[in-house]
């Protein structure tokens, strides 16, 4: 035999096919493709952040981890299929690991969505909604670009300090936010937001007054007051 089997097949124009089992779904896939590509083609939604096709396969974000049949976690964006294998692509356990890793990423992200050019088209936001991690402000969902922001026009909007995640008409169409979903829990976001309010010339007492409409009975409201006092005290 002149050539190996695989080489001959390639020469004949036949793609080399492997049989995979993802969760319980049996599929056939082209050899040499990454597991992430195959899974996405077959309707499995694996979150991924750091991978850039043909450019970066550094496996840094560890969100696209899948489990092999031996119970080992491997990043699917990097792994190229070479034989008939079984993988668990989605399970409560995996989702928990992804959630922890994503929370870690968020915890070191300087969240200033109101100034971010990617708002409305934010991958972090998408993944956070898929994984059920809350913590981003409403601004991340707002369709208005930073220079079109209502606040720059003098309209008081509570989007900067309200938790995102609702698909209500008011925010998806670019209206002002009334804060009905509750406040953001991270204090550093609140602090930055109130600084921004002050920068734009709003009286912080007005903001608090507006916020009191929905949040009056909340325990966290005391903390928000403290943050406001802190921001107010910066000048002195």
């Amino acid at each position: 035999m002149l050539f190996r089997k695989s080489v001959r097949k390639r020469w004949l124009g036949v793609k080399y096919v492997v049989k995979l089992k993802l969760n319980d779904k049996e599929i056939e896939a082209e050899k040499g493709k990454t597991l992430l590509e195959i899974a996405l083609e077959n309707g499995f939604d694996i979150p991924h952040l750091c991978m850039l096709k043909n450019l970066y396969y550094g496996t840094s974000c560890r969100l696209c981890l899948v489990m092999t049949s031996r119970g080992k976690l491997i990043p699917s964006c990097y792994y190229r299929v070479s034989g008939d294998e079984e993988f668990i692509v989605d399970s409560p356990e995996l989702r928990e690991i992804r959630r922890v890793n994503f929370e870690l990423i968020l915890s070191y992200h300087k969240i200033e969505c109101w100034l971010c050019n990617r708002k409305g088209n934010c991958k972090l936001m998408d993944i956070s909604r898929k994984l059920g991690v809350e913590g981003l402000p409403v601004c991340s969902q707002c369709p208005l670009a930073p220079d079109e922001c209502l606040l720059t026009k003098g309209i008081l909007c509570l989007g900067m300090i309200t938790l995102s995640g609702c698909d209500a008409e008011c925010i998806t169409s670019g209206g002002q936010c009334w804060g009905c979903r509750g406040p953001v829990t991270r204090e550093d976001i609140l602090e930055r937001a109130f600084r921004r309010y002050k920068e734009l010339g709003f009286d912080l007492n007005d903001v608090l007054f507006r916020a009191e409409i929905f949040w009056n009975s909340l325990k966290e409201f005391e903390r928000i007051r403290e943050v406001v006092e802190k921001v107010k005290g910066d000048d002195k």
Partner: protein
Amino acid sequence: MKAKGEVILWSLLDKCCEKCKHSKINPCPDYIECRVKGPLCHDDQKCKELRKKRIEELKYGVHGSKIRIPLSSCTLATGAEEIYNKFKEYILEKRLDTEITISGCFGLDYLDPWFEVIMKGYPAAIYVKVKGKDIPRILDEYFEKKDVSNAFALRYRTGKAKGEEKVPLLDEIDVWKKQRKWVSRNCGFINPESLEEYILSGGYSGLSRSLKMKPEEVIETILKSGLRGRGGAGFPTGLKWKITRTQPGNPKYVIANADEGDPGAFMNRLLAESDPFRIIEGLTIAGYSIGASHGYIFVRAEKPLMASRLKKAVEEARKYGLLGENILGSGFSFDIDVILSAGAFVCGEETAMLSAIEGKRAWPRQRPPYPAQQGLWGQPTAINNVETLAHVATIMSYGLEEFVKLGTEKTKGTKMFCVTGSVSRPGVYEVPVGVSIRYLVEELAGGAPEGSSIKAVQIGGPSGGCIPKDKFDLPIDYETLQSAGAIMGSGGIVVINDNNCMVDVAKFFLTFTSAESCGKCFPCRIGLRKLLDILDKITSGNGSEEDIIVLRQLANSVRNSSLCALGGTAPNPVLSTLRYFGDEYEAHIRDGVCPANVCKAFITYTIDQEVCIACGQCAMNCPVGAISKTSSGKYSVDYDRCIRCGTCFIICPVNAVQKVGKKEMVRGEVCG
């Protein structure tokens, strides 16, 4: 001076006469055996005597006496250089013919600095814990009075010296007898910079034997021996070589990993500083058996002596044709480069090391593909720890029968362990795998020093785990340690006594690993940081019950989802202390007490008024002026101003300053 007509063999590796056919271009396959056992190709009594004379010279010095002083990092730190200079002074002053040679360290670090005096016809005596001013007295005793009664031990007896019966042989000494010296057999007793002495001690016979076998046979021998990687993971060495050999792709590479960065582990350093040729021999055998023509030794840059010894050894081996082209006439060519690490802990991780050798930033890569499949420059690469390679060289020279007798069913052979911390005899001990932790810590290292008791040991460096005292009967092997929550690692054992708070210990190791994290993957970069934040919160007295749950969950997640072995093992100290010392965490959180009185948030210092002698040292040295004189003339601490630095505690000459838990203090005041 050379007398007329007399032939002198300047080096054991030189030709004895013109009949010797060995040359660099056309090497003799029996070169090594020939050099030690006299000429093999021709039977000439004169040549044999020449060789015998040179061997005598090497053993006892050219003029019948020599002093062997270990110059390695551990002895240099305790002042060996000063002693070395004293020897020179003494010899110049007395006009002696005595030779001074250097050697490596023999592992018993609590005896540093030490030296050995050898004189033909008299016993070789080892003196330990010597001071510069004692040198003339000791040498006078030995050379003039022939009195060895003050020596620590003798290498052998001759019965001619005074006081010989009083001094034990080294092999009779408890600490020495209980060890099984296998790879470290030469450490301390040969000159690490002399190839002659290494060959005389039986070195390079392994390479010479291997080159006469087929590469597959060498791999088969190593497979049969059951040798497992001594770097920590315990992968069978023979299997690794077999995989690398059968992989397609040429050229192949072999790498010796000498990047040892664990705090409290220095067995690789000891081996490379005391017996570097053994590592080079092992690497050459590895290169021969996997079919590589180039090898690298990756040395930690923070250990310069180790790097320079290895470099010198490589040059020396190259000079005598033991590296280079056509080694020992076998047609096998091999060369070694010594590469200094990029200076980070993570460089010791095998894939990060590959990046570092390639000249990139030392970032780990995702496995699979494993280095055996795609390693250095994308070629199949076998990476072995230096201790593994030393084992290979020893197995090939001394045969595997003796090796297989040692160790347990699953793991054969011996392992070097560094026992440091709160023990009375810290040092490097080589024991068969499978001995209990108690044997190492209590019988060899002598247990805790007086006034304290052992609480736990940390095995495997910062990425290992803590094992408590009641589990000390566990045998040390890969599987048992893993199931107990620790890892074998490179073999560093840090002994922790009851003056240490386990939360603080976990924090210490995590501070190290989080600082050394390379930052490529998020779980390790941010996760370790967050774990450290939580531990900080607990030790500063702000912990809550929820923290323990978060700690456990986050640590497990970091361990499972990290990219490389650094992140995969870094949470081990937290998880193992949570497992065995969970009550200490709870005491910090629930009761607000640090059981060992270490965490600053939970302690205060008080001065016992009855013991205090009113010397005023504490008040003078207090950085915040919290200590003042009372009406009775004695001193007392102002608790609000005290920053708990502990200066007064250390400085008090009569131990009147006491560490007290904050809660006890408050209770005492209320009652009183």
